[in-house]
């Protein structure tokens, strides 16, 4: 159980996208998201879908994993689709039944909005969650947000908290398992009964877990102090992130993609709808 704990949803690999500077990846993801929101015409969406397919292939991650990422959002997707189909008014009436009216615009709109949500999921998966370790993301965020330190935003403290939380997730998972085993050996029953009973059965797990977590936190704080930790001030990093030309080439590609989307919106406004 120990070795296969993957933090977050990171899928290992050695593709170009995996190796990009995580800071640039965050920027790319942000710009990419804006680009996706800019798209208004069917042609622009077609381009973005093709681009997303290329990115997915570039990561070398099996495409079915990206579909898996969409599963938790299925309700939102269906809900948005239904709302758009049944409540959007337009000029081309397709179907009418009492108060329900379905217009062609509604169907196109629903389709594009769903597509947009799917593209957003793929975009964040490709550039952030699937190809960047949470640790790298934390480091990158700290460096990107560095200017905020001047405004007394505790950027370093936040990132240190994230790092420690990530570091202790597997430790605490192990600990939970040990406590469950210990309580089971004493006759505790976690698997039968209704919701309330099962919820109450968690108390003998949570209390020891919390006590132990607090003790660990105390010891860790002492250890950090003994290693001269005094906060972010005057601190250096061994691995400072370096962006290479390839990072900015990739970034420019996304900018070009954005420009192309705007052009398609303006010059080939096929079925352009209010989104």
């Amino acid at each position, binding site marked *: 159980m120990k070795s296969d704990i993957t933090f977050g949803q990171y899928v290992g690999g050695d593709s170009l996208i995996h190796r990009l500077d995580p800071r640039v990846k965050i920027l790319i993801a942000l710009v990419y998201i804006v680009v996706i929101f800019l798209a208004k015409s069917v042609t622009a969406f077609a381009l973005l879908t093709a681009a997303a397919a290329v990115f997915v292939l570039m990561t070398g991650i099996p495409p079915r994993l990206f579909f898996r990422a969409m599963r938790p959002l299925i309700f939102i997707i269906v809900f948005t689709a239904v709302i758009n189909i049944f409540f959007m008014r337009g000029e081309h009436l397709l179907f009418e039944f009492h108060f329900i009216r379905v217009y062609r615009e509604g169907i196109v709109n629903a389709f594009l909005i769903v597509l947009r949500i799917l593209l957003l999921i793929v975009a964040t998966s490709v550039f952030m969650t699937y190809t960047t370790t949470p640790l790298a993301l934390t480091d990158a965020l700290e460096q990107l947000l560095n200017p905020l330190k001047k405004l007394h935003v505790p950027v370093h403290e936040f990132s240190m908290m994230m790092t420690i939380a990530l570091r202790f997730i597997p430790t605490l998972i192990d600990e939970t398992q040990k406590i469950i085993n210990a309580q089971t050996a004493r006759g505790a029953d976690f698997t039968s009964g209704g919701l309330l009973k099962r919820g109450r059965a968690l108390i003998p797990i949570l209390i020891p877990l919390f006590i132990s977590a607090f003790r660990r936190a105390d010891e860790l704080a002492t250890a950090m102090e*003994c*290693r*001269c930790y*005094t906060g972010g001030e005057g601190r*250096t990093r*061994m691995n400072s992130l370096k962006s290479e030309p390839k990072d900015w080439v990739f970034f420019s590609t996304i900018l070009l993609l954005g420009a192309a989307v705007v052009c398609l919106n303006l010059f080939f406004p096929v079925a352009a709808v209010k989104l």
Partner: protein
Amino acid sequence: MNPIIKAENLSFSYPGDEESKPVKALRGVSFEIPEGSFTAILGHNGSGKSTLAKLLCMVNLPDSGRLWVAGREITAPDATERDILEARRDVGMVFQNPDNQIVATIVEEDVAFGCENLGIPPAEIRERVDAALAAVGMSEYARKQTYNLSGGQKQRVAIAGTIAMNRRCVIFDESTAMLDPMGRREVMDIIAKLNREQGVTVLLITHHMNEAAAADRIIVMNQGQIYLDGSPREVFGKPAAMWAAGLDVPQTTELAYKLRQKGLDVPLYLFDAESCAEAVAEAVRRRSGKSAGGGKTGS
């Protein structure tokens, strides 16, 4: 040589609450640790040895008495956080629980943590970290996750972290207590190497007699006071005094002691099984040689 740690009449009590009275953990402890020495502090649970460790690495400050660490008196009335921080550059600590002292997810990043705190330039940190990992034999694990390491390996990573900081003195607070025998041997070998080859002052707090026997000097704590202080030969040469304090002596010493009571002349200070066995064999041979005329004694 100048002592790296000097304690004068240190006392410390843990504050009590409604149910319990304050506990006097240390009552007037004085000693000097010369630079480059290898000292073991022995004592059973509640003898005050861990309290002493907490004072020496400046987690707690003594109630009374004076303490110098790396040439700075940290109990001076005008001593500040700054002095403690400076002293911590020279004196570090490796704790008992390997899990609760590792900060980073990746081995080399954890080793670098202390150096990063000191604000050392990245290129130099890289050099120091590589050298420190090589010194503890963990180079091939540099990019691995700390979580998957064994207890002994985690302690070696923690030791590498203090080596990378170029510290002059490292205190080991029962650092082998949670390890299996193999991990314990790995860590003890590295501690001995650290002292011999790099000249780092080692203060080993332990309740393992055999680990203490590897030191140049043993300080035995009992009821918050120094009970015995001397070389392993001297300290373990008084098994009766050790037993009276609720402590053990190495098994070889115990065996030798019992054999001596039976009139067999075996030295008390042979701490590894091999040389002890040889000495016993030698003594038996000598005795049977003496009484060879008498026939079959010394079986």
